[in-house]
C-alpha cells in the first residue's frame, strides 16, 4: 500500500506536444492546441534553432503541469533528452514517443521497448534468480 502510485484524476486535461512544425500543425488542426490567459501553450515547436535547454524546460514543464494527461514527443527530440525521458516514471502525464516526418519510428530507441529488452536480458534474468 505504501508503494501504491496515485493516479491524478482530471475532468479536462490536455495533450501536450514537443515535435516539429508539421506534426504540431496537424495536431492543432485536430483541436488539441490550448493557449491560456498568460499565453502559455501546450506545445513546443522544435526546429533547427531550438536549443536543448528549451526542450528540457518544456519537457519538465509539461510533465509537472496538472492539466496535462499525455505528452507526445517526437522520437528524434526524445533522443536529444534521452536521460530525462528514461528517468521519467510517473503514470500521468503519460509519455508517448511518436515518429516525425523526417525521422521514421525506430524501435531500437523507443524507451518502452528498451525497458522490455532490459527485462528480458540475461543480466536482468540472472539477477532475478539470485
Amino acid at each position, binding site marked *: *500500500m505504501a*508503494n*501504491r*502510485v*496515485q*493516479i*491524478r*484524476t*482530471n*475532468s*479536462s*486535461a*490536455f*495533450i501536450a506536444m514537443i515535435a516539429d*512544425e*508539421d*506534426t*504540431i*500543425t*496537424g*495536431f*492543432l*488542426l*485536430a*483541436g*488539441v*492546441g*490550448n*493557449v*491560456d*490567459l498568460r*499565453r502559455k*501553450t*501546450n506545445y513546443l*515547436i522544435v526546429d533547427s534553432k531550438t536549443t536543448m535547454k528549451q526542450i528540457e524546460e518544456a519537457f519538465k514543464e509539461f510533465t509537472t503541469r496538472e492539466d496535462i*494527461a*499525455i505528452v*507526445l514527443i517526437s522520437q528524434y527530440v526524445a533522443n536529444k533528452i534521452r536521460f530525462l525521458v528514461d528517468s521519467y516514471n510517473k*503514470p*500521468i502525464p*503519460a509519455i*508517448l514517443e*511518436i*515518429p516525425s*516526418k523526417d525521422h*521514421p*519510428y525506430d*524501435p531500437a530507441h*523507443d524507451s*518502452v*521497448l528498451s525497458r*522490455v529488452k532490459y527485462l528480458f536480458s540475461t543480466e536482468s534474468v540472472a539477477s532475478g534468480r539470485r
Partner: protein
Amino acid sequence: MESSKNGRESNEEISEKDENILSFLDSMDTYLTLMDSLSSTLRQGWLELASARHSMGASRINSTLLDLKFHRASTTLQVNEQSAGPDRELPHFTLRKWASSNNPEKNFEEAKFGEDELLKIKSNSLRRRDTSQSSEIQARSPESVGTPVSVDDLAQRERSKSLSMFGTLVSPKLRASQVSFETGTVATLFI
C-alpha cells in the same frame, strides 16, 4: 504425498507465470502494431499537409499563423482511476473530441479507453487493421431531446474553427489532413 502436492503447486505457479509472460508479449506485439498504424496515419497526414501547402502556398500554412490568442483546446481528455487489483490502479482515459468552446463540458464526441478494454478490443481490431472503428465512440448530447445530428454539427463547427486559422477558403487536402491527425489522436489513446 507432500512432494507431489508441492510439485503440483509449483507447476501451477509456473503455468501462471507463463500466462503472464505470454500476456505481456501479446501486449508488446499490440504496442508495435499500433505504433506502425500510428506511423502510417501520421505519414498520410503529413503528405496531405504538404499537398495543401503546395496548393495554398507556403505562406498560408506555417507556424506563424498559429493562433496565440487565448483559446481552449477543443479536444481534451478525462482521466479517471480504474482498479486493476488490490494494490494497483490504472489510468482510464476518455477522449472528448470537438467540445464546444462555449460549453466545453457539453456536446462532444466521447471515446472511452481503458487499458484492459483496449487489449480485449485490439485482438479483433488489429486483425482488421481498423483502429478508428473499433473504439467505443459515442456521440453524446446533454439534452434529453438532443439528436446525434446536433453533436455532429457542433463538431463540424469546431473543425471549421480550427481550419480558420489558415484562412476562410482552404484546400480539401488540408481538411483531409485534419481528419488524418484526428485519427492519429485517437490512435495515440489506443497506444
